[in-house]
């Protein structure tokens, strides 16, 4: 109970405080201590969820089960390391006159509103409130993306606002359709959009309405996830946003958007055979994976490179959820965590490089190993992790997803991707076809990504670039994330494993 209240009110209070505080140091202390409080509250909530299964409080408005708790773990963990990183990053931006000192308060206000909207979207019991909160994240982040007020950032912020608002308006129609079908069964109750009420009656809902509802929600929330072909805002937004915000967008916001898709999938799967949602997710996932890996080949801007890698990883997670089953879903969820850590690390690194080299062009960055040795290690780790090399944790989750695809048991009377790839061959060949396609583009991606990263790390730095690097608060969070990526590759701590297994049981319908 208290942990839920802390998680919801903490960001709001911190945001309002940020508007009245003017000293940078105090702002950072408030920000960091809020994130610390959120992390503590989240730990307590996790204990409660593991003990009781699910938590419903605040008059039924808040519903936290293993799935939403797992997403909350990601939000608070990445948020905490982000606040450490912002300490050095934002001070540096102010010192160099990129932003006026008095705007620092606005930055933290928007940041905490963003955080609040994400926490609310994850905890909301009602699908409608979840939608409201997710649209809230769009509204809070558009000015964060355009925070530097350059031409490009204004353009990116505008595109983001318009595309995501439109996408999410379509999702609202999906929510309306869900309500249309549920209010029939539950009667005219104000609880007819609540997950707690829907779960019990989901198998009585009308399948035709739910089909249409799921398509609208997938397209709408999929825009927020950045699935191809609704991804066009994403590289612009990530490359123009300040580095910590890009890290939060890529690591956390995408995860929350995936969570909303999973919620609707869990609902629809009770009324329809899981192949319906599964094949849609598989199609979008595979398409995103392939298109993103091709675009990675032609990138010359390192932040855009990481942005396309985000699309690719979300596609990968969607493939996992699309294949479904225990292994695929477990792999997909675990991949969300690994991607969040690796991608946040990558964008922190991008922020460090940008501050030293003052360019976003990959060609302008040479000899990182000499200029910024710590950052060079971090970008190598992030690069290896993002292309799925062992011993880093994304390797484990990708392996789980691939083996789930290979072992998938296609039922032949439903429409699926496999039919386009291999028309008349048996089921085993069809899943092997997808695996082959997947592995081929994984190799393309590996080459493209590591070539770019390698080009930045080795060589001699351009003239006029200072060499050597001193430790700041930001470097501490880099180290923590490197350790996390390595550690999760070898051992999955008991509580996280339990949380993941229970979250899988929320999604997979038997």
């Amino acid at each position, binding site marked *: 109970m208290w942990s839920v209240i802390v998680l919801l009110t903490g960001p709001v209070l911190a945001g309002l405080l940020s508007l009245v505080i003017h000293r940078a140091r105090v702002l950072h202390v408030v920000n960091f201590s809020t994130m610390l409080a959120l992390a503590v509250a989240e730990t307590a909530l996790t204990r409660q969820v593991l003990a009781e299964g699910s938590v419903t409080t605040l008059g039924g408005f808040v519903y936290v089960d293993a799935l939403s708790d797992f997403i909350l773990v990601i939000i608070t963990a990445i948020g905490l390391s982000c606040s450490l990183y912002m300490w050095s990053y934002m001070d540096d931006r102010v010192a160099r006159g990129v932003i006026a000192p008095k705007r620092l308060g606005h930055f933290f206000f928007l940041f905490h509103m963003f955080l609040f909207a994400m926490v609310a979207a994850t905890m909301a019991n009602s699908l409608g409130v979840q939608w*409201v909160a997710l649209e*809230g994240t769009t509204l809070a982040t558009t000015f964060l993306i355009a925070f530097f007020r350059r031409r490009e950032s204004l353009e990116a912020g505008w595109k983001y606002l318009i595309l995501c608002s439109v996408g999410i308006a379509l999702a609202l129609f999906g929510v309306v359709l869900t309500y249309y079908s549920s209010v029939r069964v539950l009667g005219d109750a104000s609880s007819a959009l609540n997950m707690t009420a829907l779960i019990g009656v989901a198998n009585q809902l009308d399948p035709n309405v739910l089909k249409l509802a799921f398509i609208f929600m997938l397209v709408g929330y999929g825009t927020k996830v950045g699935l191809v072909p609704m991804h066009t805002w994403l590289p612009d937004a990530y490359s123009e946003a300040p580095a910590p915000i890009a890290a939060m967008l890529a690591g956390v916001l995408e995860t929350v958007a995936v969570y909303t898709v999973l919620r609707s999938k869990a609902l629809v799967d009770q009324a329809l055979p899981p192949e319906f949602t599964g094949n849609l997710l598989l199609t979008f996932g595979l398409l995103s994976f392939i298109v993103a890996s091709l675009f990675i080949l032609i990138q010359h801007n390192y932040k855009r490179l990481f942005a396309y890698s985000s699309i690719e990883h979300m596609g990968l997670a969607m493939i996992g959820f699309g294949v479904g089953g225990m292994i695929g879903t477990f792999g997909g969820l675990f991949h969300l965590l690994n991607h969040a850590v690796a991608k946040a690390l990558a964008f922190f690194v991008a922020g460090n490089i940008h501050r030293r080299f003052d360019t976003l062009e990959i060609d302008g960055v040479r000899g990182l190993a000499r200029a910024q040795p710590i950052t060079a290690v971090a970008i190598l780790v992030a690069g290896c992790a993002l292309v799925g090399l062992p011993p880093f944790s994304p390797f484990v989750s990708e392996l789980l997803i691939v083996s789930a695809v290979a072992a998938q048991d296609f039922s032949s009377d439903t429409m699926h991707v496999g039919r386009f790839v291999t028309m008349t061959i048996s089921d085993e060949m069809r899943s092997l076809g997808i695996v082959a396609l997947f592995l081929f583009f994984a190799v393309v991606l590996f080459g493209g990504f590591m070539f770019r990263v390698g080009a930045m790390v080795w060589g001699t730095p351009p003239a006029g670039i200072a060499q050597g690097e001193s430790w700041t608060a930001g470097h501490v969070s880099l180290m923590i994330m490197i350790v996390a990526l390595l550690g999760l590759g070898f051992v999955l701590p008991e509580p996280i494993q339990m949380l993941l297994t229970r979250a899988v049981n929320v999604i997979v319908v038997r």
Partner: protein
Amino acid sequence: MSASTQLGSQLVDLCSVLLLLCCFAIVAQRRLSACVDLFALQSAFLAATAALVAFLTGHKHIYFAAALTIVIKVIVLPRILRKVIERLNVSRELGMNINIPAGLLICGALVIVAFFITQPIIPLGYLLTRDSLAIALAIILIGFFTMIARQKAITQMVGFLVMENGVFLGATAAAYGMPLIVELGVFFDVLVAGLIVGIYTHRLQDTFDSVDTSTLTVLKE
């Protein structure tokens, strides 16, 4: 079906069709201020539909939604948008991605598509409002189309607001309104979105000397 239900159902249909007509008028209109006025008119029809449904079904909370529609979508948002237009250096939209006759034809096709998509689920609906669901989807699709066809930031925002109106008509028609907390939240989001667009057009005007989104071409592959 009793005579009063039949009359009520026809009145609701009439109101929904008026909303749809406003959509076509917006697609056919070049003047920015007229687009905003038409949006306000459409919102007024939406409020009328909601009030009618509330009256016929006795669901009191829909009156509340109708009142909020009048305050936010008929008065506040159009006023914000008109203020923005006053500051701009253009009042008419000259370049369009798709010209008006072709646009109107496409919109006609979209209405057919909307009826086609919703056909299997319409029989589930309440007798009073069953056809409005198809019209709601048509309005959403036309709003979406407006955003694609137009280049000015203001008309793109109007397109978005038209989509929202469509969703609200759908909610009122299909399920006699959504839970109150959700409706409040959606209104709040729409209002904030309107304010943000106002600020954005201001900054775009200052930075690019235009609110034509076709000038936003720096970022691409």
